[in-house]
């Protein structure tokens, strides 16, 4: 009885604290606000949602059954199916879902001010993203760990299955292109960053050789060696930066760097995994977890002030980083930090095979995404603690604010965000860079934000080291995503081509490997190339496309979940997935619509293509722009077609899901539920709970 009263009291305190923190953030105008309020609001929101909403879903809607044997127990093969301690599964799951998306998205969305992005990261996660991850994990667990594509095919029919497959392949291509662009923009004319990122390749290979031949399977030893070498590489990059001869070797504009990334991607896709991909992944996982923890400690310790206003004037769609109004583009831009369709691919297929008990689904599915959303909040803090003028100077492309520093600062100051050339030169000098202007993409401004937080927490003298550490940290796991994504794309393509010519489906037949890897790399390489030559920085085009494709994948996962809920006669509760699904359909359709018909050349693909074609015909373009104009025009039309295709894919699967639901409700035959039969667990006594 006493415990119950105490518990009610504690939750009332958490609710009041959360409400106060959120209210403080939301109603504050014009004054710098302590970042600790963001952390407090986020933690309270997650805690309440986890304790009440997630618990209600698992006990009343999904009907979690702790006595039911999980696939890990029934199909235990000591390898991929294996009952595992829930904290270990949580670690694996979080390491798999946490990527560069939640770091880049909030940084870009900060152009609207801190409030819209922060609110969506919190609301979108607890009502949408966490629910999606958790129900997908649950349904896949009940289906022997089937993948999202298989579940879509079994539960909705062939249309759903094909849509899921195509969406996954396309999102992968756009994702890799945009992440490649982020890395290229971070390395552009930066010998320090370029040499450090280059050094990560031989370091990963060395670790790969160590773990395969010198000390087979000693993952921790190999990783420790790699992490030490990576830190040395960051310091070594600083040394390279001061050697006149060596410096020039790593000082390149965007285009050659893009070609290098493309060549690297192809090499990584055809090299054996143990040599590059696997060791790089170990290193990036440690770097990622370590840096996220360090950032959390530094923010709590330093309590930096957020200087960005709650809203900027760019909510009207005139933002310099990407064009488009607050609705729907803040949702499309944040993407992964609130709802990420990609997580459904991990939550189905990989994680369910490790669960020892269904009880763990809430912590791993819902809790894992809540932590990911928390990473997005920290990225938002790191972006908004910068002076807004500095933030816009780093992130605005030259095509918008002008190539010359004086023009750029004049333009940015005229928006009401004062910044000076001296301020920017001093900052660049502190960070060990020649310039920080027009480094669109999120990575450099996040690195400056992180460096200033780390610097004030752990010593100002090391600012340039912190900056390049942050760049290396982002680059290493962007490159891991690039390797892994190219490889998965290759398998999917081989699988598809295998239907036409069986030989192509043999994943180890070298001609097939070369051809399919080449096709995938060419596909994302094309978008990367266009992004680099685009005068508006490329991010303006690619990030919204990526956001749209990611949100459409999430919509597919939510369609599968809603379909299963209705078929399981849980219509009354189907809103838990149907509501976020409806919202995703609204925002993605609105975004595609804007991208197609907007007369603003920075938003509408087609109007941009027309405007460029008119200028080309009138001969008003300078020669260097005129030479690439036909390629840009073609690409804009291609982007428009792609956006339209994404929207069509979404509507096909939504209507297909509705058709199945209506058929079920009117007692017509539908594909049967593919849930595996119930077996009583034998593990409970044997399995030590902690």
């Amino acid at each position, binding site marked *: 009885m006493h415990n119950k009263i105490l518990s009610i009291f504690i939750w009332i305190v958490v609710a009041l604290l959360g409400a106060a923190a959120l209210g403080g953030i939301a109603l504050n105008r014009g004054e710098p606000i302590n970042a600790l309020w963001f952390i407090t609001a986020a933690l309270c929101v997650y805690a309440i949602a986890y304790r009440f909403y997630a618990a209600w879903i698992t006990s009343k809607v999904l009907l979690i059954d702790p006595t039911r044997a999980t696939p890990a127990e029934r199909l*235990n093969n000591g390898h991929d199916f294996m009952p595992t301690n829930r904290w*270990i599964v949580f670690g694996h799951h979080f390491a798999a879902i946490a990527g560069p998306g939640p770091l880049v998205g909030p940084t870009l969305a900060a152009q609207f001010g801190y409030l819209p992005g922060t609110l969506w990261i919190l609301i979108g996660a607890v009502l949408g993203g966490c629910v999606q991850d958790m129900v997908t994990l649950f349904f896949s667990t009940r289906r022997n760990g089937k993948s999202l594509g298989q579940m879509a095919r079994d539960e909705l029919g062939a249309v759903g299955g094909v849509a899921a497959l195509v969406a996954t392949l396309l999102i992968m291509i756009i994702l890799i292109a945009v992440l490649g662009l982020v890395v290229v923009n971070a390395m552009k004319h930066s010998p320090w960053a370029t040499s450090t990122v280059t050094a990560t390749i031989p370091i990963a290979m060395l670790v790969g050789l160590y773990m*395969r031949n010198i000390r*087979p399977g000693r*993952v921790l030893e190999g990783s420790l060696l790699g992490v030490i070498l990576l830190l040395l590489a960051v310091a070594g990059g600083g040394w390279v930066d001061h050697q006149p001869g060596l410096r020039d070797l790593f000082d390149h504009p965007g285009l050659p760097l893009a070609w290098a990334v493309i060549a690297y991607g192809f090499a990584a896709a055809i090299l054996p995994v*143990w040599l590059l991909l*696997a060791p790089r992944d170990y290193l990036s996982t440690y770097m990622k977890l370590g840096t996220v923890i360090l950032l959390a400690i530094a923010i709590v310790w330093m309590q930096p002030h957020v200087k960005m206003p709650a809203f900027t004037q760019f909510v009207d769609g005139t933002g310099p980083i990407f064009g488009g109004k607050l609705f729907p583009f803040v949702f499309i831009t944040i993407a992964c930090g609130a709802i990420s369709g990609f997580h459904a691919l991990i939550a189905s297929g990989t994680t369910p095979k490790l669960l020892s008990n269904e009880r763990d689904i809430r912590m791993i599915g819902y809790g894992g995404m809540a932590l990911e959303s928390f990473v997005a909040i920290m990225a938002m803090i790191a972006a908004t603690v910068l002076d807004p003028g500095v933030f816009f100077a780093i992130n605005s492309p030259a095509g918008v604010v002008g190539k010359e520093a004086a023009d750029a600062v004049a333009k940015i100051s005229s928006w009401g965000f004062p910044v000076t050339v001296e301020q920017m030169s001093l900052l660049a000098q502190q960070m060990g860079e020649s310039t920080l202007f027009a480094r669109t993409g999120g990575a450099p401004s996040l690195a400056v934000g992180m460096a200033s937080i780390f610097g004030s927490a752990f010593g100002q003298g090391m600012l340039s080291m912190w900056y390049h550490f942050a760049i290396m940290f982002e680059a290493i796991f962007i490159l891991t995503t690039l390797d*892994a994504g190219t490889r998965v794309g290759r398998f999917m393509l081989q699988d598809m081509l295998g239907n036409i010519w069986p030989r192509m489906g043999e994943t180890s037949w070298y001609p097939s490997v070369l051809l399919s890897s080449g096709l995938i790399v060419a596909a994302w390489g094309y978008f990367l190339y266009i992004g680099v030559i685009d005068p508006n920085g490329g991010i303006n085009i690619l990030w919204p496309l990526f956001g749209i494709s990611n949100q459409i994948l999430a919509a597919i996962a939510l369609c599968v979940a809603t379909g299963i809920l209705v078929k399981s006669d849980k219509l009354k509760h189907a809103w838990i997935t149907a509501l976020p699904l409806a919202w995703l359909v609204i925002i993605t359709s609105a975004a595609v619509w804007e991208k197609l018909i907007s007369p603003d050349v920075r938003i509408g693909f087609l109007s941009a293509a027309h405007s460029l074609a008119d200028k080309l015909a009138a001969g008003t373009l300078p020669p260097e722009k005129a030479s690439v104009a036909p390629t840009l025009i073609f690409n804009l039309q291609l982007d428009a077609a792609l956006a339209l295709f994404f929207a069509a894919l979404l509507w096909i699967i939504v209507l297909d899901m509705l058709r199945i639901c209506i058929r079920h409700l009117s007692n017509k035959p539908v594909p049967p539920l593919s849930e595996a039969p119930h077996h009583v667990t034998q593990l409970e006594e044997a399995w030590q709970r902690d």
Partner: protein
Amino acid sequence: MAKRLKIWLRRCWQVARQLSGDDAYERYLAHHTACHADTAPLSRKEFFQRDQQQKWNSIKRCC
């Protein structure tokens, strides 16, 4: 006190090994002895090679 600390440190070490996959071979051996004792297990090197190859044949990393 020292004993407690030792137990605690050992636990941390085990968690680190399990999270990183450092103990994957030992877990494989345990499973092999329990379920397939009639066949010879893979060597550490063979197991690790097979494990990595299989791990990267599906989607393991997100955006």
